[in-house]
């Protein structure tokens, strides 16, 4: 067991794993998934395309292999830290009990001065304390140190990383990521798991009261927001307007504003005369009819509506319920009693053969009063506080290890001869520090 632990904590393994992780992560960013395969095949060539789609297919970052590397890294980091922590503490203890100045021969920072006879130890300790050095051992040698936390900065950093990694795993196991699309006025007690679409019970009901979107002059969205109400039974529990960067949290489940779109099934067929005045307006639903004086005796009837038009085995069909390519088929009878039919597409207003028989223009247009649907991401991730704690620990650890130098000073008093020996984990000479302390000892201003 001990042997295994030592192997696991080998710094060689640490470097190996770090490099392995670098390479795997870099490979993962090449993944191709989704998008237009033909375009991408053209762009990358056959071979690269196959490599990239393979990486995309195995979903590298969520594969067992990648998880294995991370897990091994976690144990390696833990073992590395624990294996070194004990000896580090022991050597500090041993340092404080040193009595033989010969053991310090390795330290280059030293200064020997003569002081007034009878300079008391108290005075020395005081001078050290003024410089921020706290006495940690007094025998034949005085031993004072400063920045002890700096000595352990690396361990703090490691603890931070370990915490973040545990958090990420907890989040993956105990949380879920789903989505939900609601029309204005619609409520739901479910959301749908990302990727699989499997329904997940929320345990309460969420209703979209109102959706609003504002645009810049160039047509890009400036701001969009959903007014949500959460209720259980008859009771309304929470109401909040969410927008991008400002989600709603309820019982650990967070609703993020992620997208919006035009609501399906809310198109109208506008019939316009030569002056482009709308003379009739029919809902784009099978069976709706228009006739009358304005139409000069014509009868127009909607025969079929397709929100996302496509041809399926020679027959018109719809690909989805979202209005990506709305189309209507109309039947008409002219005043002379001649019957015909035609297709009108919202996205291609110039398309459609009326055979010149219709004295009107017809446009399939969005019903402006119909509103939007709001797309939300629904996430439960109990690991967030843990991960953030880990981040704080990590940054603290960096501060300690980079900016809190750990320094020790041994003072040997032999009559009027005073020798200061210093050790530091930061670069640079301790000469200035020694001079300051000596001048304090001598009581110079």
């Amino acid at each position, binding site marked *: 067991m001990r042997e295994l632990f030592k192997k696991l904590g080998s710094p060689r393994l640490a470097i190996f794993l*770090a490099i392995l992780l670098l390479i795997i992560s870099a490979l993962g960013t090449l993944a191709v998934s989704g998008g237009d395969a033909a375009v991408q095949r053209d762009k990358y060539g056959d071979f690269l395309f196959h490599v990239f789609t393979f990486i995309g297919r195995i979903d590298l970052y969520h594969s067992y292999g990648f998880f294995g590397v991370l897990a091994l890294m976690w144990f390696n980091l833990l073992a590395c830290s624990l294996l070194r922590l004990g000896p580090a503490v022991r050597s500090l203890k041993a340092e404080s009990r040193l009595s033989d100045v010969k053991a310090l021969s390795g330290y280059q920072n030293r200064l020997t001065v003569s002081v007034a006879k009878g300079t008391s130890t108290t005075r020395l300790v005081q001078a050290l304390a003024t410089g921020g050095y706290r006495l940690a051992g007094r025998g034949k040698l005085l031993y004072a140190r400063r920045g002890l936390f700096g000595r352990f900065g690396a361990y703090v950093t490691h603890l931070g990383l370990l915490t973040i990694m545990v958090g990420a795993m907890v989040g993956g196991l105990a949380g879920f990521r789903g989505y939900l699309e609601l029309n204005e006025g619609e409520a739901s007690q479910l959301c749908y798991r990302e990727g699989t679409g499997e329904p997940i019970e929320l345990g309460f009901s969420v209703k979209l009261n109102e959706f609003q979107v504002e645009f810049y002059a160039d047509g890009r969205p400036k701001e969009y927001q959903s007014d949500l109400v959460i209720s259980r039974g008859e009771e309304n529990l929470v109401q909040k307007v969410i927008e991008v960067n400002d989600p709603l949290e309820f019982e650990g489940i967070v609703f993020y504003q992620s997208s919006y779109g035009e609501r399906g099934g809310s198109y109208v067929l506008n019939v316009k005369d030569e002056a482009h005045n709308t003379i009739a307006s029919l809902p784009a639903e099978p069976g709706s009819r228009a006739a009358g004086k304005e139409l000069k005796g014509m009868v127009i009837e909607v025969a079929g509506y397709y929100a996302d038009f496509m041809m399926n085995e020679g027959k018109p069909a719809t690909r989805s319920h979202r209005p990506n390519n709305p189309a209507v088929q109309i039947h008409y009878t002219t005043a002379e009693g001649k019957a015909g039919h035609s297709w009108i597409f919202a996205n291609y207003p110039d398309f459609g053969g009326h055979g010149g028989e219709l004295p009107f223009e017809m446009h399939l247009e969005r019903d402006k009063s119909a509103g939007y649907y709001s797309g939300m991401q*629904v996430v439960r991730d109990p690991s967030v506080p843990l991960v953030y704690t880990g981040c704080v620990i990590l940054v603290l650890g960096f501060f300690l290890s980079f900016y809190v130098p750990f320094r020790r000073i041994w003072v040997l008093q032999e009559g009027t001869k005073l020798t200061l020996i210093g050790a530091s984990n930061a670069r640079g000479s301790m000469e200035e520090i020694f001079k300051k302390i000596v001048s304090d000892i001598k009581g110079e201003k």
Partner: protein
Amino acid sequence: MSWQLLLNASFFLYVAATVIYMLYAARLVRRVVTVGYALAVLGCLLELAGIILRWRVGGYVPLSNTYEVLVFFSLCMVAIYLVVERIYKIRAVGAFVMPLALIALGIASLLPEQAREAAPLVPALQSQWLTFHVVTCFIAYAALAVAFAASMMYLLLLKRGKLGTKTDAKYLSSRVLWGVAVGITVSFGLLAWLIKGQLAAILVMFGVAVGGYLLKLLAMRWGNKEESELEALGDLNHKMVTFGVLLLALGIISGAMWANSAWGRYWGWDPKETWSLITWLYYLTVLHLRFAYGVSRTRMAVLCLIGLFLVVFTFVGVNFLLAGLHAYG
């Protein structure tokens, strides 16, 4: 006065400062280097003023597209360098830092007109995290770029002064330096190709190659052949890498917190996220190699040269080559 004018002025001040620093590195001038420092400070202030003016004109903190962050990047590099020059008193490093700042500003001005205009922010960018995230990331990149410059100077000094051990000498073989030179030339060429097309790529590669060669000729004349200068350069390199690692950690963490408030996930293996993590892990590995394994300063310098490629790739390469959420950054 428009922000554009201020940025142009600072560009020319940087050009002048670069020339002076190079002449200093070549030991052709001595005292005049103070003028170079003063010009760089002035350029830096004008650039800052330009950014602030654009902030007021555009109505948002100008850190949201490639152009704006390139300008900010050059500001960070010069500012960091001007501070550390005071501390470490190795002025010749300016001969490497100033050209990097010039290149950043130059690439920024190469971008098409519409990419340079102030444009209002899409909802995902309207967050108080934006400023903190971008500022920390780019200070980190800038610190790592200064580490690159210090490493370059360190290696040249070592070669010139015939200092160091035999193992050091191996890293200074022409092959390594040639490799770095070709690498830098090609990556800048690639960058120009992605931004402006073939002709720009050829021109930029030619410019970098000629400029690099001149720089080498000049810089090889520099150096007092003193161990203490090597020491100071190594120390500067170390300080810049640790600073960069800390700031990059803050940048990645703030990015994660922002992503969590915007999309409900703090980490999604988006290419930009992943590459910033790769860069961060790389420099952490370098630090461990140096301080836990005790590899030589020379090796660390070579590793810091390579590291800049990761930084540049994370910064610009990802935007142009890989799809992701940061296409605007």
